[in-house]
Protein backbone atom coordinates (compact mmCIF):
# COMPACT_ATOMS: atom_id res chain seq x y z
CA UNK A 1 0.00 0.00 0.00
CA UNK A 2 1.46 3.30 -1.02
CA UNK A 3 1.30 6.43 1.06
CA UNK A 4 0.40 9.65 -0.59
CA UNK A 5 3.37 11.91 -0.93
CA UNK A 6 3.22 15.57 -0.01
CA UNK A 7 3.54 17.96 -2.92
CA UNK A 8 7.02 19.33 -3.41
CA UNK A 9 5.79 22.82 -2.74
CA UNK A 10 2.56 24.31 -1.44
CA UNK A 11 0.14 25.27 -4.21
CA UNK A 12 0.53 28.90 -5.09
CA UNK A 13 -2.40 31.25 -5.10
CA UNK A 14 -3.84 31.75 -8.56
CA UNK A 15 -2.63 34.97 -10.09
CA UNK A 16 -4.97 37.89 -10.64
CA UNK A 17 -5.50 39.10 -14.16
CA UNK A 18 -4.84 42.65 -15.16
CA UNK A 19 -5.49 44.60 -18.32
CA UNK A 20 -2.38 46.56 -19.30
CA UNK A 21 -2.62 49.66 -21.46
CA UNK A 22 -0.10 52.23 -22.62
CA UNK A 23 -0.70 55.79 -21.48
CA UNK A 24 2.07 58.04 -22.77
CA UNK A 25 5.36 56.57 -21.55
CA UNK A 26 3.70 54.42 -18.87
CA UNK A 27 2.30 50.91 -18.97
CA UNK A 28 -0.59 50.81 -16.56
CA UNK A 29 -2.34 47.69 -15.32
CA UNK A 30 -5.84 47.49 -13.91
CA UNK A 31 -7.32 44.42 -12.21
CA UNK A 32 -10.08 42.65 -14.11
CA UNK A 33 -12.44 43.34 -11.24
CA UNK A 34 -12.29 47.00 -12.23
CA UNK A 35 -11.49 46.92 -15.95
CA UNK A 36 -14.69 46.02 -17.75
CA UNK A 37 -14.21 46.57 -21.46
CA UNK A 38 -11.96 47.88 -24.17
CA UNK A 39 -13.95 50.09 -26.49
CA UNK A 40 -13.33 52.09 -29.60
CA UNK A 41 -15.33 55.28 -29.35
CA UNK A 42 -17.52 55.60 -32.41
CA UNK A 43 -18.56 59.15 -31.55
CA UNK A 44 -16.61 62.07 -30.19
CA UNK A 45 -17.06 62.58 -26.45
CA UNK A 46 -19.01 65.69 -25.51
CA UNK A 47 -16.39 68.30 -24.64
CA UNK A 48 -16.80 69.97 -21.25
CA UNK A 49 -15.74 73.62 -21.49
CA UNK A 50 -13.32 75.19 -19.02
CA UNK A 51 -11.96 71.92 -17.68
CA UNK A 52 -8.37 70.62 -17.81
CA UNK A 53 -6.94 69.19 -21.02
CA UNK A 54 -6.74 65.70 -19.52
CA UNK A 55 -10.53 65.55 -19.44
CA UNK A 56 -11.29 64.74 -23.06
CA UNK A 57 -15.03 64.98 -22.47
CA UNK A 58 -17.88 62.78 -21.41
CA UNK A 59 -19.04 59.84 -23.49
CA UNK A 60 -22.33 58.00 -23.55
CA UNK A 61 -21.43 54.33 -23.14
CA UNK A 62 -24.51 52.13 -23.10
CA UNK A 63 -26.64 54.94 -21.72
CA UNK A 64 -24.18 55.79 -18.95
CA UNK A 65 -22.35 59.10 -19.15
CA UNK A 66 -18.68 58.46 -18.37
CA UNK A 67 -15.73 60.87 -18.22
CA UNK A 68 -13.06 60.16 -20.84
CA UNK A 69 -9.61 60.80 -19.42
CA UNK A 70 -6.16 61.08 -20.98
CA UNK A 71 -3.86 59.91 -18.19
CA UNK A 72 -0.72 60.79 -20.17
CA UNK A 73 -1.86 64.41 -20.22
CA UNK A 74 -2.83 64.29 -16.55
CA UNK A 75 0.58 62.96 -15.53
CA UNK A 76 2.61 65.30 -17.69
CA UNK A 77 0.52 68.27 -18.81
CA UNK A 78 1.68 69.65 -22.12
CA UNK A 79 4.55 67.18 -22.44
CA UNK A 80 2.73 64.69 -24.60
CA UNK A 81 1.46 65.82 -27.98
CA UNK A 82 -1.92 67.44 -27.62
CA UNK A 83 -4.75 64.94 -27.78
CA UNK A 84 -5.66 64.21 -31.36
CA UNK A 85 -8.67 66.07 -32.55
CA UNK A 86 -11.59 63.80 -33.15
CA UNK A 87 -11.70 62.90 -36.82
CA UNK A 88 -14.77 60.74 -36.91
CA UNK A 89 -15.25 57.09 -37.68
CA UNK A 90 -13.16 57.24 -40.83
CA UNK A 91 -10.23 58.95 -39.18
CA UNK A 92 -8.53 58.65 -35.82
CA UNK A 93 -10.66 57.00 -33.20
CA UNK A 94 -9.96 56.79 -29.51
CA UNK A 95 -9.56 53.46 -27.83
CA UNK A 96 -10.54 53.48 -24.18
CA UNK A 97 -10.43 51.13 -21.23
CA UNK A 98 -13.78 51.33 -19.46
CA UNK A 99 -13.58 50.61 -15.77
CA UNK A 100 -15.47 50.97 -12.54
CA UNK A 101 -19.13 50.67 -11.78
CA UNK A 102 -22.11 52.85 -11.06
CA UNK A 103 -21.36 56.52 -10.74
CA UNK A 104 -17.58 56.19 -10.52
CA UNK A 105 -16.85 54.84 -13.97
CA UNK A 106 -13.91 56.07 -16.00
CA UNK A 107 -12.94 55.64 -19.63
CA UNK A 108 -9.16 55.84 -19.95
CA UNK A 109 -7.79 56.65 -23.37
CA UNK A 110 -4.76 54.58 -24.26
CA UNK A 111 -2.32 54.05 -27.10
CA UNK A 112 -1.50 50.79 -28.82
CA UNK A 113 -3.14 47.50 -28.02
CA UNK A 114 -4.33 46.31 -24.60
CA UNK A 115 -2.43 43.40 -23.08
CA UNK A 116 -4.16 41.06 -20.62
CA UNK A 117 -1.67 39.48 -18.22
CA UNK A 118 -1.64 37.36 -15.10
CA UNK A 119 -0.25 39.24 -12.11
CA UNK A 120 1.07 38.38 -8.69
CA UNK A 121 1.89 41.12 -6.24
CA UNK A 122 5.52 42.01 -6.77
CA UNK A 123 6.94 44.86 -4.75
CA UNK A 124 10.68 44.06 -4.61
CA UNK A 125 11.77 46.98 -6.79
CA UNK A 126 8.73 49.10 -6.09
CA UNK A 127 10.37 51.85 -3.97
CA UNK A 128 13.04 52.51 -6.61
CA UNK A 129 10.56 52.51 -9.48
CA UNK A 130 8.03 54.56 -7.56
CA UNK A 131 10.52 57.32 -6.82
CA UNK A 132 11.18 57.72 -10.55
CA UNK A 133 7.49 58.25 -11.36
CA UNK A 134 5.53 61.50 -11.60
CA UNK A 135 4.37 62.59 -8.14
CA UNK A 136 0.69 62.10 -8.98
CA UNK A 137 1.31 58.48 -9.96
CA UNK A 138 3.42 57.41 -6.98
CA UNK A 139 0.65 56.85 -4.41
CA UNK A 140 -1.52 55.00 -6.91
CA UNK A 141 0.91 52.16 -7.66
CA UNK A 142 0.08 48.84 -6.00
CA UNK A 143 2.87 46.83 -7.56
CA UNK A 144 4.93 46.05 -10.62
CA UNK A 145 4.38 43.85 -13.60
CA UNK A 146 6.85 42.20 -15.98
CA UNK A 147 5.86 42.88 -19.55
CA UNK A 148 6.78 40.10 -21.98
CA UNK A 149 8.85 41.03 -25.00
CA UNK A 150 7.22 41.33 -28.36
CA UNK A 151 4.27 43.53 -27.52
CA UNK A 152 5.68 46.68 -28.98
CA UNK A 153 6.49 48.23 -25.62
CA UNK A 154 9.97 49.41 -24.72
CA UNK A 155 11.93 46.37 -23.43
CA UNK A 156 12.47 46.43 -19.67
CA UNK A 157 9.79 49.01 -19.02
CA UNK A 158 7.90 47.84 -15.93
CA UNK A 159 4.15 47.76 -15.88
CA UNK A 160 2.52 49.58 -12.99
CA UNK A 161 -0.57 48.05 -11.43
CA UNK A 162 -2.72 50.91 -10.17
CA UNK A 163 -5.38 51.28 -7.51
CA UNK A 164 -8.31 52.45 -9.66
CA UNK A 165 -10.39 53.80 -6.78
CA UNK A 166 -7.48 55.97 -5.66
CA UNK A 167 -7.06 57.07 -9.27
CA UNK A 168 -10.72 58.14 -9.49
CA UNK A 169 -10.40 60.10 -6.24
CA UNK A 170 -7.19 61.77 -7.40
CA UNK A 171 -8.73 62.80 -10.72
CA UNK A 172 -11.85 64.14 -9.04
CA UNK A 173 -9.77 66.07 -6.50
CA UNK A 174 -7.69 67.53 -9.31
CA UNK A 175 -10.81 68.53 -11.24
CA UNK A 176 -12.21 70.28 -8.18
CA UNK A 177 -8.89 72.07 -7.62
CA UNK A 178 -8.80 73.13 -11.23
CA UNK A 179 -12.32 74.47 -11.38
CA UNK A 180 -12.65 77.69 -9.47
CA UNK A 181 -14.78 77.07 -6.38
CA UNK A 182 -16.89 80.17 -7.05
CA UNK A 183 -18.14 78.65 -10.26
CA UNK A 184 -19.08 75.42 -8.52
CA UNK A 185 -20.74 76.70 -5.39
CA UNK A 186 -23.97 78.02 -6.90
CA UNK A 187 -25.02 74.57 -8.08
CA UNK A 188 -24.00 72.82 -4.90
CA UNK A 189 -25.69 75.35 -2.68
CA UNK A 190 -28.78 75.47 -4.86
CA UNK A 191 -29.30 71.76 -4.45
CA UNK A 192 -28.66 71.89 -0.73
CA UNK A 193 -30.76 74.91 0.14
CA UNK A 194 -33.37 74.85 -2.63
CA UNK A 195 -32.50 78.32 -3.75
CA UNK A 196 -32.15 79.12 -7.42
CA UNK A 197 -28.67 78.82 -8.86
CA UNK A 198 -27.09 81.85 -10.42
CA UNK A 199 -25.80 81.53 -13.95
CA UNK A 200 -22.12 80.72 -14.30
Amino acid at each position, binding site marked *: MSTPTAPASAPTEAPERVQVVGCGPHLLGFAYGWARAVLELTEAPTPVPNTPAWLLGVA*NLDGQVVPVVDLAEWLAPGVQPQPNAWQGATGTTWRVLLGGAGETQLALRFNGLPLPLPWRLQTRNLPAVRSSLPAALQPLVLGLLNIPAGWGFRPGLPGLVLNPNALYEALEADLLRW*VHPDTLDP*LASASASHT*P*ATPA
Partner: protein
Amino acid sequence: MKKVLVVDDSPVDLKHLERLLSDSGVLVLTAATGAEALDKARQEQPQLILMDVNMPGLDGFSTARKLAADPATKAIPVVFVTAKDQKADRVFAQMLGAKGFVTKPCSAADLSAYL
Protein backbone atom coordinates in the same frame (compact mmCIF):
# COMPACT_ATOMS: atom_id res chain seq x y z
CA MET B 1 -48.91 79.11 -16.48
CA LYS B 2 -45.26 78.10 -16.58
CA LYS B 3 -44.35 75.60 -19.27
CA VAL B 4 -41.70 73.01 -18.35
CA LEU B 5 -40.20 70.30 -20.54
CA VAL B 6 -39.22 67.14 -18.65
CA VAL B 7 -36.74 64.81 -20.37
CA ASP B 8 -36.18 61.31 -19.02
CA ASP B 9 -35.89 57.87 -20.60
CA SER B 10 -37.46 56.22 -17.55
CA PRO B 11 -41.27 56.20 -17.84
CA VAL B 12 -41.53 55.87 -14.05
CA ASP B 13 -39.36 58.90 -13.38
CA LEU B 14 -41.08 60.85 -16.13
CA LYS B 15 -44.49 60.15 -14.59
CA HIS B 16 -43.22 61.04 -11.11
CA LEU B 17 -41.85 64.41 -12.25
CA GLU B 18 -44.95 65.10 -14.32
CA ARG B 19 -47.13 64.56 -11.25
CA LEU B 20 -44.95 66.74 -9.01
CA LEU B 21 -44.98 69.59 -11.48
CA SER B 22 -48.67 69.34 -12.34
CA ASP B 23 -49.49 69.57 -8.65
CA SER B 24 -47.49 72.80 -8.61
CA GLY B 25 -49.62 74.28 -11.37
CA VAL B 26 -47.07 73.81 -14.13
CA LEU B 27 -47.90 72.87 -17.71
CA VAL B 28 -45.75 69.80 -18.31
CA LEU B 29 -44.36 68.64 -21.63
CA THR B 30 -42.43 65.39 -21.77
CA ALA B 31 -39.74 63.82 -23.92
CA ALA B 32 -38.24 60.36 -23.58
CA THR B 33 -35.05 61.02 -25.54
CA GLY B 34 -32.58 63.81 -26.10
CA ALA B 35 -33.54 64.04 -29.77
CA GLU B 36 -37.21 64.43 -28.88
CA ALA B 37 -36.26 67.08 -26.35
CA LEU B 38 -34.44 69.12 -29.00
CA ASP B 39 -37.52 69.08 -31.23
CA LYS B 40 -39.95 69.95 -28.46
CA ALA B 41 -37.73 72.69 -27.10
CA ARG B 42 -37.61 74.35 -30.52
CA GLN B 43 -41.34 74.00 -31.14
CA GLU B 44 -42.77 74.65 -27.68
CA GLN B 45 -40.23 77.09 -26.24
CA PRO B 46 -40.64 75.95 -22.61
CA GLN B 47 -39.48 78.29 -19.86
CA LEU B 48 -37.46 75.53 -18.21
CA ILE B 49 -36.08 72.09 -19.09
CA LEU B 50 -35.62 69.42 -16.43
CA MET B 51 -33.34 66.78 -17.88
CA ASP B 52 -31.94 63.41 -16.92
CA VAL B 53 -28.23 62.79 -17.67
CA ASN B 54 -27.95 59.05 -18.32
CA MET B 55 -30.05 58.30 -21.39
CA PRO B 56 -29.43 56.03 -24.37
CA GLY B 57 -28.65 57.79 -27.62
CA LEU B 58 -28.29 61.49 -26.92
CA ASP B 59 -27.49 61.82 -23.22
CA GLY B 60 -28.43 64.81 -21.09
CA PHE B 61 -25.03 66.53 -21.30
CA SER B 62 -24.92 66.24 -25.10
CA THR B 63 -28.50 67.43 -25.38
CA ALA B 64 -27.74 70.45 -23.21
CA ARG B 65 -24.77 71.28 -25.39
CA LYS B 66 -26.92 71.11 -28.52
CA LEU B 67 -29.61 73.25 -26.92
CA ALA B 68 -26.98 75.86 -26.00
CA ALA B 69 -25.63 75.86 -29.55
CA ASP B 70 -29.04 76.47 -31.14
CA PRO B 71 -30.11 80.15 -31.23
CA ALA B 72 -33.73 79.02 -30.92
CA THR B 73 -33.15 77.22 -27.61
CA LYS B 74 -29.97 78.61 -26.06
CA ALA B 75 -31.86 80.91 -23.69
CA ILE B 76 -33.92 78.11 -22.15
CA PRO B 77 -32.48 77.22 -18.73
CA VAL B 78 -31.62 73.57 -18.13
CA VAL B 79 -31.69 71.87 -14.74
CA PHE B 80 -30.30 68.34 -14.53
CA VAL B 81 -32.39 65.90 -12.53
CA THR B 82 -30.28 62.78 -12.20
CA ALA B 83 -29.23 59.86 -10.03
CA LYS B 84 -25.61 60.87 -10.68
CA ASP B 85 -24.32 62.51 -7.53
CA GLN B 86 -20.55 62.72 -7.86
CA LYS B 87 -18.91 66.11 -7.43
CA ALA B 88 -17.43 65.72 -10.89
CA ASP B 89 -20.93 65.42 -12.35
CA ARG B 90 -21.83 68.78 -10.81
CA VAL B 91 -18.74 70.31 -12.38
CA PHE B 92 -19.64 68.89 -15.79
CA ALA B 93 -23.20 70.19 -15.45
CA GLN B 94 -21.99 73.62 -14.41
CA MET B 95 -19.48 73.87 -17.22
CA LEU B 96 -22.09 72.80 -19.74
CA GLY B 97 -24.20 75.76 -18.69
CA ALA B 98 -26.77 74.14 -16.40
CA LYS B 99 -28.73 76.39 -14.10
CA GLY B 100 -29.21 73.69 -11.51
CA PHE B 101 -28.54 70.12 -10.46
CA VAL B 102 -31.06 68.03 -8.53
CA THR B 103 -30.32 64.50 -7.34
CA LYS B 104 -32.96 61.79 -7.71
CA PRO B 105 -35.15 60.86 -6.02
CA CYS B 106 -36.42 64.41 -5.78
CA SER B 107 -39.37 66.08 -4.13
CA ALA B 108 -41.54 69.05 -5.06
CA ALA B 109 -39.43 71.15 -2.69
CA ASP B 110 -36.27 70.24 -4.62
CA LEU B 111 -37.85 71.50 -7.82
CA SER B 112 -39.72 74.51 -6.47
CA ALA B 113 -36.56 76.62 -6.41
CA TYR B 114 -36.40 76.48 -10.20
CA LEU B 115 -40.08 77.12 -10.93
